[in-house]
């Protein structure tokens, strides 16, 4: 696989590098605890020490299943983001259509004061 990619001029060096990483990932399919901690940080999720190995195992198993995608021949296949063909993003006129309902919406907020959302102090 790596040889095919290396000889294909349409792939940049960076792509080959990332694809190699990609296939290496599947060769092992093991998420390490530090990777789980890093992903959880990126996703802003606190997870406990005891949960780390559980997620490591299940994410490894999911990524190993997802690894089957490698089998597909996708050269020159346009990625599909929207399930209906030929539709474009609809735009509306840039005008105010909503009335002020902040009190109603803020009724669900954990903490507000003077119509503002409160969070812990960010700037000392």
């Amino acid at each position: 696989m790596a040889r095919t990619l290396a000889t294909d001029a349409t792939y940049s060096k960076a792509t080959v590098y990332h694809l190699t990483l990609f296939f290496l990932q599947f060769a092992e399919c093991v998420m390490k605890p530090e990777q789980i901690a890093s992903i959880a940080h990126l996703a802003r999720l606190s997870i406990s020490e005891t949960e780390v190995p559980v997620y490591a195992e299940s994410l490894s198993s999911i990524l190993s299943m997802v690894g089957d995608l490698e089998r597909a021949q996708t050269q020159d296949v346009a990625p599909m983001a929207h399930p209906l063909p030929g539709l474009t993003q609809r735009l509306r006129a840039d005008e105010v259509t909503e009335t002020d309902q902040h009190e109603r919406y803020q009724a669900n907020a954990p903490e507000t004061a003077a119509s503002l959302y409160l969070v812990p102090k960010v700037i000392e």
Partner: protein
Amino acid sequence: MSIHTKTLPQLAAGLRAREFSAVELARHFLDRIAAHGPALNALVSVTADTALEQAAAADRTLAAGLGGPLTGIPLVHKDIFCTQGVRTTCGSRMLDNFVAPYDATVVAKLKGAGMVMLGKANMDEFAMGSSNETSFYGPVKNPWNPGLVPGGSSGGSAAVVAARLAPVATATDTGGSIRQPAALCGLTGLKPTYGRVSRYGMIAFASSLDQGGMMTASAEDAALVLQGMAGFDPRDSTSVERPVPDYAAALGQPLKGLTIGLLKEFFDKGLDPDMERSVREALAVYQQLGATLKEVSLPSIGLSVPAYYVVAPAECSSNLARFDGVRFGYRCKDPRDLMDLYKRSRGEGFGAEVKRRIMTGTYVLSAGYYDAYYLKAQQVRRLIANDFERAFGEVDVIMGPTTPTPAFGLGDKTSDPVTMYLNDIYTIGANLAGLPALSIPCGPVRQLPAGLQIIGRHFDEERLLNVAHVYQRETDWHTKVPAAYE
């Protein structure tokens, strides 16, 4: 015949003939919910006061000689649809105290059509699950056997209709969440074409896949409900501007000349042999009705589960970023700083499966992996959509099983996520391609309901409903009710 086993047209006729009022109808179903709802754990909220007010309004409309086929008909909404002034939890601790400030378009439209809301159905947390075991409010039981799962994620909706606690429940389908529980509970469940039903106010999981629909006993009932739900909505940027046909008028067309595609890849070694027998018996009925069977192959369909488990978690990780403990939803106690507030609110507010999917999505979208996972999955998605398009050049509808097996036991598949994900192996393809698909009950498998799946071309709901309806005129599987709920 009991009032709760009547079809929608029978209920509408009864209301018009003053055999019973909408208030009496609502009370009948509220009594059933009080008697059976808690044991099945099918509902998160019961809205009895709202129901009786809406029913009284429906009675006034009917008394004035006004209203339509849905006026006064009770329903339960999946708790993913925002309902103004009513708690909307999405099955999550994150939204345990969330009172929606507005109605979803689906809710507003069905309310406008005179339907009466009885309550909100339990569901897998944020619609992520195939067995309704990920809900913060606990698992839903299958009315056919309380030791079995009802399917998911719309498991509460399925249990409600299967036990005849309401004649209609709304539901949503991202990878099979309407069709799979409909199959496991012996119901008709329709996932319309992507863009046919507005997603406004339907809490987002994976925006390029999510679609609202319904569960009912029959295709005839589903046609009436779809009529009330479908249509263009300027508030949903993916809603399609296209007239809504008269679905009920399309029912009853003969099937002579219909070509049914049998999806070769769905009749594989993973399919329970008894399930295959049941599906093939249903196909034989279609042949007797004049349809022709033709084998079709979708070479890339085998990659639908892997493609889905990149695309759906990626979109989920983006959509669920809005839950940050600031504007609404759960907030942790005594946050040290803003980062701690974000992390602990999300860590404590979301359940394990939701966190797993957010992390999977975060990983596949992270720097250096985007091309290898997300782009690749989107390319495979195109291959699958192309496969369907080619097949629909040869056949009018595609049929196969909805699920590989009938309902499984509570707790049987919770230890390994991938085993759970494979329940959706036959349903995910239609979501990836945006196609309409429905599941109808065919002959039982070991005394449990089984589903026949029918997939159609984009916006071909009329044909799907007709094909299902004509089968239901010939068979009575869709009229079966679990003995405890007759």
